[in-house]
C-alpha cells in the first residue's frame, strides 16, 4: 500500500519535473540543460517575492513563472540562436547557463531551512494505513492537469501545432510561414515556465536546496531518455517505471540507492534502445 501510494506521487513528481524539459527538447529540438536551474530559480524568486517583498502567494507564483519564462525566451535570443541545430553546443551553452544560475544562487546563500515555500493546503489524510499530506495529492492533480494541458496545447492550439511542425520538419514549417526562431524561443519560454510550475508544486515538500538544480536536470533527463524524448505517453510511462522503482528500492534497500536506480535506468535504456521506449530515432539533419 505504502509503495503504491508513494509510488504514484513519486511518479507524478518525476513527470512534472520532466514535462518542461521534454516540451522544449521533443517539440523543438532544443536541449535545455538549464531546466533544473530554472526550476530552482522559480522557487527562489517566489520565496523572495513572498517573504521579502510581501507579495501574496498567487501573484508571487505567477510573476516567477512569467519572469523565468521570459528568461528562457531571452536565453534563446541571446545564446541559442547562433547554436541552433548544433546539438553539442546547445548542451554546453545551456549547461553553462545552468551552472552560472545555480552557483550564483548558492553563493547568495539561498539554501537551507529558512527557504521553504508554503504548501497549498496544510494537513494530511490517511489512506489505508498510509499518511499522505494534501500537498502530495495536489501534486498528483497538478501533474495530471499539466499532462492534459500539454497534450491539448500541442494538438489544438495554433502555437502548439507550430511547435510540433518545427519539430517534425523545420524547413517545411518555414515554407508554410512559421517563424522557426520565434517558435523555438517560445518553446524554450514555455518549457522554462513549466519548470517553475513543477517547482512550485514540488518544493513545498521540503526546504529549498541549490543542489536540486542539478538533481532535477538528471531526473528530467532520465525520464526523457527512458521514455523517449518527444513522446507524451513515453514521459508518463517512464515516470511511473522510474517512480515505482525508486520507491521500491528505497523501501527494500536504502534511500541512497534511488539515484543509482535513475542513473542505472539511463545506462540500461541507452544500451538496449537508445531512442527510449516510445521514442523514434531522428537523424541530426532532420532537425536542422
Amino acid at each position, binding site marked *: 500500500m505504502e509503495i503504491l501510494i508513494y509510488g504514484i506521487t513519486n511518479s507524478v513528481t518525476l513527470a512534472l519535473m520532466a514535462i518542461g524539459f521534454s516540451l522544449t527538447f521533443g517539440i523543438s529540438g532544443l536541449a535545455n540543460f538549464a531546466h533544473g536551474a530554472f526550476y530552482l530559480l522559480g522557487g527562489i524568486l517566489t520565496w523572495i517575492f513572498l517573504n521579502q517583498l510581501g507579495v501574496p502567494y498567487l501573484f508571487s507564483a505567477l510573476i516567477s513563472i512569467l519572469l523565468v519564462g521570459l528568461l528562457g525566451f531571452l536565453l534563446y535570443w541571446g545564446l541559442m*540562436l*547562433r*547554436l*541552433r*541545430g*548544433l546539438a553539442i553546443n546547445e548542451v554546453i551553452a545551456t549547461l553553462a547557463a545552468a551552472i552560472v544560475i545555480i552557483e550564483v544562487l548558492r553563493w547568495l546563500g539561498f539554501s537551507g531551512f529558512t527557504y521553504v515555500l508554503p504548501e497549498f493546503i496544510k494537513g494530511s489524510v490517511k489512506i489505508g494505513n498510509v499518511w499522505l499530506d494534501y500537498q502530495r495529492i495536489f501534486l498528483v492533480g497538478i501533474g495530471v492537469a499539466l499532462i492534459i494541458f500539454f497534450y491539448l496545447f500541442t*494538438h489544438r492550439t*495554433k502555437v502548439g*501545432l*507550430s511547435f*510540433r*511542425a518545427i519539430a*517534425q*520538419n523545420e*524547413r*517545411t*514549417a*518555414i*515554407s*508554410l*510561414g*512559421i*517563424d*522557426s526562431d520565434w517558435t523555438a524561443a517560445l518553446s524554450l519560454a514555455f518549457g522554462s515556465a513549466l519548470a517553475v510550475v513543477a517547482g512550485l508544486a514540488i518544493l513545498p515538500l521540503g526546504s529549498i536546496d541549490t543542489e536540486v538544480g542539478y538533481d532535477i536536470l538528471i531526473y528530467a533527463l532520465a525520464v526523457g531518455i527512458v521514455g523517449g524524448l518527444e513522446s507524451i505517453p513515453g514521459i508518463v510511462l517512464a515516470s511511473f517505471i522510474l517512480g515505482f522503482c525508486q520507491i521500491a528500492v528505497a523501501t527494500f534497500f536504502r534511500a541512497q540507492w534511488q539515484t543509482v536506480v535513475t542513473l542505472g535506468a539511463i545506462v540500461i535504456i541507452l544500451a538496449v534502445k537508445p531512442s527510449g521506449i516510445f521514442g*523514434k530515432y531522428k537523424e541530426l539533419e532532420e532537425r536542422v
Partner: protein
Amino acid sequence: MLEVKNLMVFFENALALNDLSIEVNRGEIVSTLGSNSAGKTTLMNTISGLIIDMQVKEDRRGGERITLMGEVWFEGEEILFSKPSTRIRRGIALSRERHPIFPESDIEENLRISTYLRKDSEVKSSFDFVYSIFPPLQMLKKRKAGFCSGGEQQMLSIGMALMTRPKLLLLDEPLLGLSPAMQTSLIQAIKQIRKEGITVLVAEQFARPLLPIVDRGYVIENGMLTLQGTGQELRENPEVRSTFMGV
C-alpha cells in the same frame, strides 16, 4: 504577375543560377524543365523566400555563404529579400520537392498546421477548397501522413500549400517518384487548380505528362536558361524530346 530578372545565386563560390530571367503571367501554368542539379529547386527556393531563411541561418553559424543578385518582382513589388512568411501573406506558396510533410501528424493536422498565418474564420473554407481538389485527402484525413503512399503525400504537400490560399503556387518536382496513373491524376488536379484562378509555376524533369497542360516553359541547364517557348513549341523541340521525354 511574377518576374525574375537577371537572377544570380551563389553558394560560396559555386554559381547555382546564372543570369536567369523568367516571367509568369496571371492564370498561366508555366514550367521550368531541367535535369538534376540544373538549379530548379534553387529557383523555387528563391521565389518562395526559403533561401533567405537558409541564408540567415548559414550566416549565423558561420556556414555556407549564400549570395543573391538580381530582382524578383511579384505583383509590382520587389521581393528578393523578403521573408518566406511575408511572401506567403502576399500569396506565394511552395510545395517542396520529395513531398516533405509532417509524418507524425495525421493529414488533417498537416493541413491545419498549414493555416498558421490565416484567420480562424478562413480555415474552414480552406479545408473545403483543398478537399474539393483532392477528395482522397478527406477520406484519409485521420491517417498519419508518414503512413501514406508517395502519391497521397504529394497530394498532401500540394494541399498544404493550397491551405495558405495562394495566388501563385510553386510546385517543385510534383511528379517525382509517382506511378503513371498517379501522375495523370495530379496533372488533372493542377489543371483544376488553375481553373480556380491560381497561377502555377512548376519545376519538373518529366516533361511528357506535364507539357500538354503547360502554357509556356523554360529549359534550365547548369543554372542558365537555354530554351523557352510555349508548351506546344517545347513538345516539338527535338532537344526537349530527347532530354526530357525520352524520345
